[in-house]
């Protein structure tokens, strides 16, 4: 048996031309036979004919042999390629093990870049791309009311009925829904539930059917429909042990019996996750009601309809509505948005900067690894030249070098996936409990297979981006370079320009990221410093849900509120208890229009607007809102008493700039309220919004129990030994003792309320800050690496210079001058880039301009200082070069 190399050389030579090979072989056979026949006495002509006849079907045999040979060649070729690849990978692994410093730097920086991208991609996948799990989601639209003062307000059932009645071509179906909260009786007391009350068409509009059982019958007159309920997968699992038998059974919802008719598939939700869905049958009276808002409308467009067509149709309908009802705000229009714009528009605005930042980090990382590989390749020129001289083809050299970068990328991707695996749960739980309902898809946020595939794809891309260039360059150089040149020359500047460009790129991107992070930090600091108007460090807020049917009406509502307040006040450490229907910074904004009594009433669209709040006595004291004039509500302001209101300073200033508001009256919904007090301004709508005018009314005058309790805890001083959260357990106990059917939500302190509200800014700041920090470190490592390499390469030259009389300071200056050039270029491009890109953040900034000079200057100074400090180390090394040693080393 011949040895392998000869075998392979044979294959290389003959393999591709199997046909010629077979022809030669068969011709040899025929000639031999001919010769034998001639030797046996046959004439040459007869011998040829005889030989061919004996042989038979030459072409058939030839074809068979050729096809066997070709197949064999292909197999061998495949095996060889595979062998080469394995060999390259083994070789790459060995050579990476030999330089742990390079490997560690490259793998860790890649892992950071890939980890960042994977985290952001996973989040975007769950929160944006798959947040709306409905078929043909691009055909789904939502409708909102827009008026002069509010561009995205909830709709009324009148709007819904009008859309349904007049639907012509654009909509195939329309559904209305409204958030609902209630209680579910169970063995461990009442649990608070959130859900939606929906028209029966809700599920068919969204295009999702029940996983078990059915959804509501479209025929609203279906008997018994009113007391049926559809459960979410989550509630079905958590409260009913995933028992399919629950369908058909009766459960107590808010104290009333409902028959379970179906269970929805996992993760079915329109926006905020719901526990259950209750049917809504729109009555004739509701169909004509354009005043009661709070409803959402979702509709499915027909296949033929366009968004613009649907918009103009909706516009016609809303004009008809206002012209038929002169008392309505005449500026009201129904506005149509795609469901994804409506539900995810705000989240998307957060993701744009995050995606860009993660991409920048990855670019910096790739530039850095490319640089490391370039430096590494130039250290190995001798080795590569040797291999080329020994017969390595360019392709073999290239693929060996490429194998190294592929291996580095694979390791980086693995470590990056681990990082993302750690980071994603952190990110997930950084979204506070209270805000999760506003993040559709929160429950599905996890490192998933799609994200992993994405990671792998990124790793491949990285390998291509940073592996190709150095591999091409090194493999071509190795071939063109003669071995003896492998020494070091005095001015080996080749590749230096590429390396400098890569470092400048890194610095540029780092400046942009730092500027973005700096803006977010400033804006978050401004938000933290903003005066919300709430001065209550030790006040707790808690949402409660009272069974509505039991406490309906003013008297019973007031009674249960009074009992709750009395019982809670008895807890040691509680000073006072107040209630409200709506907490500040809750995310929902309620507006009302009002007129000043005694002045000519304005039509609704021109009447002034105010934030609409309903509170109990003690509310202002509990939240630390000073009453600048007049008095608080008292227990005497009940449903029988004269209607009273407290207004905010902003409102008072606007309407009565020169006189006291107390004693004046306003008219809301044609009822007259006497103003008894003026409260300091509060940013009810948002920390980032200037305080708007507000009207506070007393819940006791309207009835119903409050949906939030505000509990002021006793703390003599703002010291740490006073922990209001310790009151959570007693509060739960006491509420249960008043009525076990009252469900109670999360207990939060007022600072927590504010902090939860600021979550998006905090998360953005943290993520951008982390990305910027990674970018800074990598960019600084990059410039250090380039300077260190340059100094090492120029040691000989520096030695000569010093031997010729250059002193150490001059050498130091020479090296630093080069570093300064790189830093200056990076900073310049970075500043330009930052000015161009930070505008994307402007909607998220508070109290700082996207081109804030302070931030930009600070970032530039920071980067320049750190980068020059990093260059100082190799510069010092250069200055310490001993001319004798440096020159002898040659």
């Amino acid at each position, binding site marked *: 048996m011949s040895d392998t190399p000869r075998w392979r050389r044979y294959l290389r030579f003959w393999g591709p031309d199997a046909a010629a090979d077979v022809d030669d*072989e068969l011709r040899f056979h025929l000639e031999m036979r001919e010769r034998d026949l001639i030797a046996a006495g046959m004439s040459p002509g007869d011998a040829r004919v005889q030989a061919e006849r004996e042989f038979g079907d030459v072409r058939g045999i030839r074809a068979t042999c050729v096809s066997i040979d070709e197949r064999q060649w292909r197999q061998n070729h495949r095996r060889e390629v595979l062998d080469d690849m394995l060999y390259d990978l083994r070789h790459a692994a060995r050579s990476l093990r030999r330089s742990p410093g390079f490997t560690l730097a490259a793998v860790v920086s890649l892992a950071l870049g890939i980890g960042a991208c994977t985290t952001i991609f996973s989040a975007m996948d769950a929160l944006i791309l798959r947040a709306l799990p409905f078929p043909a989601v691009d055909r789904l639209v939502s409708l909102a009311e827009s008026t002069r003062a509010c561009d995205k307000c909830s709709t009324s059932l009148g709007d819904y009925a009008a859309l349904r009645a007049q639907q012509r071509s654009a909509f195939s179906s329309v559904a209305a829904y409204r958030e609902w909260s209630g209680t579910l009786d169970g063995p461990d007391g009442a649990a608070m539930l959130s859900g939606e009350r929906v028209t029966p068409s809700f599920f068919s509009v969204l295009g999702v059917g029940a996983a078990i059982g059915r959804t509501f019958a479209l025929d609203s007159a279906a008997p018994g429909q009113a007391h049926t309920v559809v459960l979410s997968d989550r509630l079905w699992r958590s409260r009913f042990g995933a028992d399919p038998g629950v369908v058909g059974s009766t459960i107590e919802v808010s104290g009333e019996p409902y028959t379970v008719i179906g269970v929805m598939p996992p993760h079915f939700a329109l926006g905020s996750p719901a526990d259950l869905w209750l049917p809504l049958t729109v009555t004739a009276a509701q169909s004509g009601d354009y005043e009661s808002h709070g409803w959402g409308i979702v509709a499915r467009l027909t296949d033929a309809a366009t968004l613009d067509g649907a918009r103009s149709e909706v516009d016609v309908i809303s004009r008809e509505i206002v012209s038929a009802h002169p008392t309505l705000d005449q500026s009201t229009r129904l506005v149509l948005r795609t469901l994804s714009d409506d539900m995810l528009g705000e989240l998307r605005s957060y993701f744009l900067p995050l995606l860009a930042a993660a991409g920048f980090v990855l670019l910096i990382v790739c530039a850095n690894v490319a640089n490391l590989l370039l430096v590494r390749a130039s250290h190995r020129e001798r080795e590569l030249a040797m291999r080329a001289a020994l017969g390595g083809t360019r392709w073999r050299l290239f693929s060996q070098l490429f194998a190294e970068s592929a291996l580095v990328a694979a390791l980086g991707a693995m470590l990056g996936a681990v990082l993302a695996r750690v980071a994603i749960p952190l990110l997930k739980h950084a979204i506070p409990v209270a805000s999760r309902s506003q993040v559709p898809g929160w429950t599905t946020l996890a490192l998933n297979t799609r994200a992993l595939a994405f990671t792998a794809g990124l790793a491949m891309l990285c390998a291509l981006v940073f592996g190709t260039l150095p591999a091409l360059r090194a493999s071509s150089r190795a071939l063109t370079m003669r071995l003896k040149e492998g020494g070091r020359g005095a001015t080996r500047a080749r590749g230096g320009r590429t390396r400098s460009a890569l470092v400048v790129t890194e610095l540029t991107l780092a400046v942009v990221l730092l500027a973005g992070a700096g803006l977010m930090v400033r804006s978050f600091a401004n938000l933290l410093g903003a005066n919300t108007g709430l001065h209550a460090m030790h006040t707790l807020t808690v949402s409660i849900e009272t069974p509505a049917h039991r406490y309906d009406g003013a008297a019973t509502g007031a009674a249960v509120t009074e009992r709750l307040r009395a019982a809670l006040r008895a807890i040691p450490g509680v000073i006072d208890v107040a209630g409200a229907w709506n907490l500040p910074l809750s995310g929902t904004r309620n507006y009302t229009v009002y007129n000043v009594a005694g002045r000519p009433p304005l039509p609704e669209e021109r009447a002034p607007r105010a934030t609409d709040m309903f509170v109990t006595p003690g509310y202002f004291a509990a939240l630390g809102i000073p009453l600048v004039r007049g008095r608080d509500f008292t227990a005497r302001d009940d449903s029988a008493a004269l209607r009273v209101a407290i207004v905010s300073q902003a409102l008072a200033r606007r309407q009565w700039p020169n006189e006291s508001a107390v004693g004046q009256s306003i008219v809301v919904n044609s009822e007259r309220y006497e103003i008894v007090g003026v409260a300091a301004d509060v940013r009810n709508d948002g920390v980032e919004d200037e305080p708007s005018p507000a009207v506070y009314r007393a819940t006791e005058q309207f009835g119903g129990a409050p949906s939030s309790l505000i509990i002021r805890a006793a703390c003599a001083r703002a010291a740490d030994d006073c922990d209001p959260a310790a009151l959570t357990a007693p509060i739960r106990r006491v509420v249960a003792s008043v009525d076990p059917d009252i469900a109670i939500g999360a207990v939060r302190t007022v600072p927590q309320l504010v902090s939860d509200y600021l979550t998006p800014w905090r998360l953005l700041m943290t993520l951008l800050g982390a990305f910027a920090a990674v970018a800074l470190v990598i960019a600084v490592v990059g410039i250090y690496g380039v300077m260190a390499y340059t100094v090492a390469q120029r040691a000989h030259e520096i030695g000569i210079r010093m031997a010729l009389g250059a002193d150490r300071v001059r050498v130091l200056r020479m090296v630093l001058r080069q570093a300064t050039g790189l830093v200056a270029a990076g900073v310049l491009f970075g500043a330009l880039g930052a000015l161009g890109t930070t505008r994307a953040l402007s909607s998220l900034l508070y109290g700082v301009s996207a081109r804030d000079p302070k931030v930009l200057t600070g970032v530039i100074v920071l980067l320049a200082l750190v980068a020059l400090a990093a260059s100082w180390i190799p510069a010092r090394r250069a200055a310490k070069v001993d001319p004798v040693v440096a020159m002898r080393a040659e």
Partner: protein
Amino acid sequence: MYAYLLCTSNVDGNAALPAASATSATATSPAMPTTPLDLLQGTLDLLILKTLAWGPAHGYAIARWIEQLTGQVLTVGEGSLYPALHRLEERGAITAEWQLTEHNRRAKFYTLTSKGRQQLRAETAMWAQFVEAMGKVLRATGQPA
């Protein structure tokens, strides 16, 4: 390892041989006049391997040797010889190399590999068993109980 199947006699030019193994499915049948004794499919491989056990040889020599050794009883059609050689090469039982003959002509010489040697041993043993078993039946005098 493939089974020994009896080759259909009176093969015409185009009829396919019954497949002895998956790899022979592409083979076209020989357009040979009927041989004195048709080869059992698979025996050809064994004969080739045995022939090459004495040393490297080219296709023509292999064919002649087999004819001589069997006293012209078994004639090897080139139509099956060459595909068989190429298949054995593909399977790694033999290797091929271009060498010069004693008459200074370039010819493709086949050499037995160690894998081929193993195959030869195994098939020789099987062949012996087969012959013995066949013999027992054919020599039998009484009907089995």
